[in-house]
């Protein structure tokens, strides 16, 4: 099955999510920010609960470093 990573599912909530993501990082050291991001990845991975989708997302995220 094709994994659709691109479609927008946040709609108008996207701006709110972005603002809240900035907010949780506020005041953190770079290392703590990195830790926070990893915790977020782990929580979201479990929330998604689909290995195929996660593999597709990992591949897409890594493309940036293979150009």
């Amino acid at each position: 099955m094709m994994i659709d990573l691109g479609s927008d599912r946040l709609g108008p909530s996207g701006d709110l999510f972005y603002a809240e993501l900035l907010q949780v990082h506020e005041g953190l050291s770079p290392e703590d920010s990195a830790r926070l991001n990893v915790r977020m990845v782990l929580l979201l991975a479990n929330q998604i609960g689909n290995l195929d989708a996660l593999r597709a997302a990992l591949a897409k995220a890594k493309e940036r470093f293979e150009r």
Partner: protein
Amino acid sequence: MGRYQYQHFGYVPPPELSGRAAPSRYPVVIVGAGPIGLAMAIDLAVRGIASVVLDDNDVVSVGSRAICWAKRTLEIFDRLGVGERIVAKGVTWKIGRVFHGDREVYDFDLLPEDGHKMPAFVNLQQYYVEQYLVERAREFPDLIDLRFKNKVIGVRHLVDVVTVSVETLDGSYQLTADYLLACDGAKSLVRAELGLEFAGKLFEERFLIADIELKADFPSERRFWFEPTFHAGQSALLHKQPDDIYRIDLQLGWDADPEVERQPENVLPRIERVLGRSDFELDWVSVYTFQCRRLERFVHDRVIFVGDSAHVVSPFGARGGNGGIQDVDNLGWKLAAVLKGHAPEALLSSYDDERIRGADENIANSSRATNFMTPKSAMEKILRDEVLDLAGEMPFARRLVNSGRLSVPCSLAGLPLQTPSADAVLEPGSPCKDAPLRKDGEDVWLLNQLGDGFALLSFGSRPRIEVTDIAYIHVARPEEGDLQDVTGHAFERYGDGMTYLIRPDQHVAAAFRIPDAAAICAARDRALARP
């Protein structure tokens, strides 16, 4: 086209200082003859309310300042009698393009549907808008008393009266008014006189803003760059205006010295890099910071704050001037109804409810755009860069890119003046949607049919309903009535068989599937805050 010729409106000694007859008390005194103060005076005059407008200057704004006038604002200007002139002179646009580096990330269309008289946006320099408003105001010589070079130097207010001290070339005088409308901008003297806190946030960022004169046929689009090669690491915005004038905004960073950056020898090379050419002339330059602030309340007894005196936002999103004109739209009919004794003074507190919602929406959108544009930490910068990188390919990331969420009208749904309705196609609290109609063989627009008072707007085959003091407007199928929906847009936007009670500011107050006079009167009384 030449550059704008600034004309002085001139000073005329006021009646108080020249021995002419002057009333001992005026219904309304407006402080500030910018776009907000002038529109306010016209809105009141259209409703038969007289006002005195005081301004310390006698010339329109220097520099283009507010240039992007949004669709709802244009509709309000049309109601005030200057909309068509503004559209005819301005540059109409609806497409925005966003670039990252030299790559176009995406484009957006702000008005994808047909059947509206007014376009998504018109770019027109504030000085033209002010000139047109002054000329329109002068069409009401009995109702609008424009007093240029009359500087307010003091304000005293009691529960039911306001006294203003005014200074002129001929000396000082005092005016007493039922209401004082403070339309005197971000640095409002009236606000300072009342000692009110203007709470909010300053963003640590500086932008250079420049109007340049250039013969070029750039398309009528808004173009925004994140980190373009011509302005490394920063943001840039380009807007087209009439008279071969372009607006360029360049992010400078917080460390930039405004005095140094304002000097032509520093501005010119920056702009040359943007345009890749040097055959332009500098018309106006300014350096500004971003601020988002608002008063806790806009109504203080008989002193009411309108526009930038009440709330300021950072400019990306065109929410300053447009927000202020929506304030005018909201306040005009309410103040007129109170002054004519049609509504209790309590109606004015709904201006606080309704426009604080609008101001907060504008501040939230403007703050988010500013945060996206000016990352404050390494983490914020990384997040922004990765969103931009993904945006070329991934629609969800495109949606997160924020170069300014452009002004859209505020919905007043759920606030006390509106009567909720489960049947409504257009929800109570929404501004009316325009649609093309035919009347006596002529093409007309729905919004132009609405008039200045309350109206019942009915669609399709329904028996006529008469309610005292409420205009009745019936939109019929083709060949069936005086006012015909020949394209189907009106029926689609409002619903076949629906009847709406429309407020004097063209917002839906109530909606009925099966209307009856008692329910309509109750909704009208509610919209007037009658007990």
